[in-house]
């Protein structure tokens, strides 16, 4: 396993407790966990692109970082009053 794939696996393990928080706790706690999970997913995509020597795939991480911002803001607005 290369120096780039091992951290991907470690970060994937870190997503498990965040999934538990999203499923079992309140909506706002879930939102915080979702925001952190978005950051970790972005980093995983970045590391995978580097691991497979495909710099073009980093666009996926870039797109996810942008969409996670928009999605997080929409969720925060919804959680404010309606969820």
């Amino acid at each position, binding site marked *: 396993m290369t120096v780039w794939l091992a951290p991907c696996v470690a970060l994937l393990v870190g997503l498990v407790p965040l999934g538990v928080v999203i499923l079992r706790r309140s909506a706002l706690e879930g939102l915080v966990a979702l925001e952190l999970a978005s*950051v970790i997913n972005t980093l995983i995509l970045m590391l995978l692109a580097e691991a497979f020597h495909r710099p073009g795939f*980093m666009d996926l991480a870039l797109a996810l970082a942008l969409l996670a911002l928009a999605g997080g803001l929409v969720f925060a607005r919804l959680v404010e009053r309606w969820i």
Partner: protein
Amino acid sequence: MDLTTFAVGALVALGVAVELACCLGVVVMRDVYDKLHFTGPAAILGPLALAGAIVVQEGLNQAGIKAVLIAGLLLVANPVLTHATGRALYIRQRDHLEPAEDELR
């Protein structure tokens, strides 16, 4: 082991350790405001360390520049998201954003 390999390994280990510690913090903390604090290092220190590792490995080519862009984007987006989430929590708890009459005195 040459210096580049050591630097890359150290930066990657630092980035992953920060992310996992923040995951643990979000799970362990009981208050949502406390949980919110742990999104900060995860979106600033972790991405900077991992982007730094890629730049050290690749230099400022396509991969390096995109890694720096991603880290910069996460760095800018996190305070905005944290503010929006904190605001949502405040409004949810008090049902209004403006201070009450007795809080103004």
